[in-house]
């Protein structure tokens, strides 16, 4: 009975926050300007927490190994993969990708693999960063 949270609440006052302050400790007044500064090397970014071993990030595509069998297109749940008939290679639109890695599993030559990049937000769905080919 009683207020069982009180002790916990007081103890919490002397503890560090659980949250990782990413990308900066305090919200910058202008995120775009802040990121530009980071690119110039004037500001430092607070790193994100480490990703686990089996993390599924941006797809890596080994074009030379690909034989153009189209199996990945058959299993892709979001139709994110396009076939280029003249080259017999594929083109992956990451803005549609749901990062399930099913294409990795079915690929007979193992030319696809999941990378560890996850900061993929972009205002343009067809930007260069979001197309893997």
């Amino acid at each position, binding site marked *: 009975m009683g207020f069982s949270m009180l002790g916990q609440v007081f103890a*919490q006052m002397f503890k560090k926050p659980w949250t990782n302050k990413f990308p900066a400790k305090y919200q910058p007044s202008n995120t775009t300007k802040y990121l530009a500064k980071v690119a110039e090397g004037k500001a430092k970014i607070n790193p994100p927490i480490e990703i686990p071993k089996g993390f*599924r990030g941006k797809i890596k595509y080994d074009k030379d190994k690909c034989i153009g069998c189209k199996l990945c297109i058959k*299993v892709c*749940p979001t139709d994110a993969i396009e076939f280029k008939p003249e080259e017999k290679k594929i083109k992956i639109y990451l803005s549609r990708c749901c990062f399930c890695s099913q294409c990795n599993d079915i690929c007979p030559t193992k030319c696809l693999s999941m990378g560890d990049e996850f900061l993929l937000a972009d205002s343009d769905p067809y930007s260069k960063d979001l197309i893997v080919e």
Partner: protein
Amino acid sequence: MKAKSTTKTSYHIPIGPIHPALKEPVHFEFEIDGERIVDVDVKLGHVHRGIEWAGSRRNPIQILYLAERICGICSYCHPIAFSLAVEGIADIEIPERAEYLRVIQGELERICSHMLWAGVAAHEIGFDSVLYITWEMRERALDLTEYLTGNRVTKAITMIGGVRRDITKDMIPRIQKDLKYLKDNFEKLRHIYLDDKTFKLRSKDCGILTNEEAVKLCAVGPTTRASGVKKDVRVDTSYFAYGDLDIDYMTPDVLTGEVNGDVYDRIVVRLLEVKQSIELIEQCLDKMPKGDIVAEPKVAKLLAQLKKVEGEGIGRHEAPRGEVVHYVKLTGEEHPYTWKVRAPTYNNILPWIPMLKGEQIADIPIVAASTDPCMSCTNRVGIIKDGNKNELTKEQLHQLSIQKTRRLMK
């Protein structure tokens, strides 16, 4: 709403579809007498997304990932129920190790979901410091999920005939470390939820669902178990490896010795289930045999196999909110002929009415939240014609049925 029952003293309060008290769109119409709720009406169908329709254009492997997106919190239950249905049709034998791995994933999801719910319940009664402390613990469970599946929410672990990722020997110490943390902190959490004055004041004798009502209205999951109904798919049908594990119905009398069917009992049941889930995962880690994790490792071959089979199948799984049912019909084509989903919240909507009757307006959020509703999972049918939303009453449906019979007779 039965407008005729309105008297001079009572008045109507519409709540929703979009309201700060509700996490997801649902429309309530309350008839209020002073502070007391006299009558309730619930209207659904604000977040219908046409997922089953989208499923009719995809092959079973693609549907796994679509099913995962029916619900963010039950992102394991839906694909696993779907694959159970498909495995039933295609007579796929699941390797024993995969059965255990499936239990581990399912129970881990239950821990995450129940802790999320406990935090939300604390928030609903205005006890936000408990929300933060619960979710700090849940964060560990989510980190463990990420470690085992590669992602926090959309796990992509299900495969027809097994699972996609194995638990290797070097992963076990990390899992045990996190389970120990959860177990140690569970007692603290239980103490806060079950012994705290604030919780007792708000949840005891509030939102009562009697045993008879729970049976009559077919409530499922923790909502029905809190009313003392012994109903749990894991025990009743002992699918996966549940038959080998030590598992029993979690009703509130296990801890408190009595069943009231109020919000407090629902908190008791969910907390007991968190503990049960931790123990089940530990048992699985001990008993897990060596072997394959999937019946057919070659996905292309599996797809070809599924393309040939014909038949109907039903997949049942005990999701954190109750029994989820998937019905699938395959007709020897690439895409399934039918795919029907019955999410557990669908059954837990009607129990809201006896729960809310006689309560106060301020109790609406906690009572509504106490069944752990998940609206976007539930909304499966919407009739829209000429841009107008249309609902059919029983009489209209009956009339339509008669018309169809006549049409067919011609």
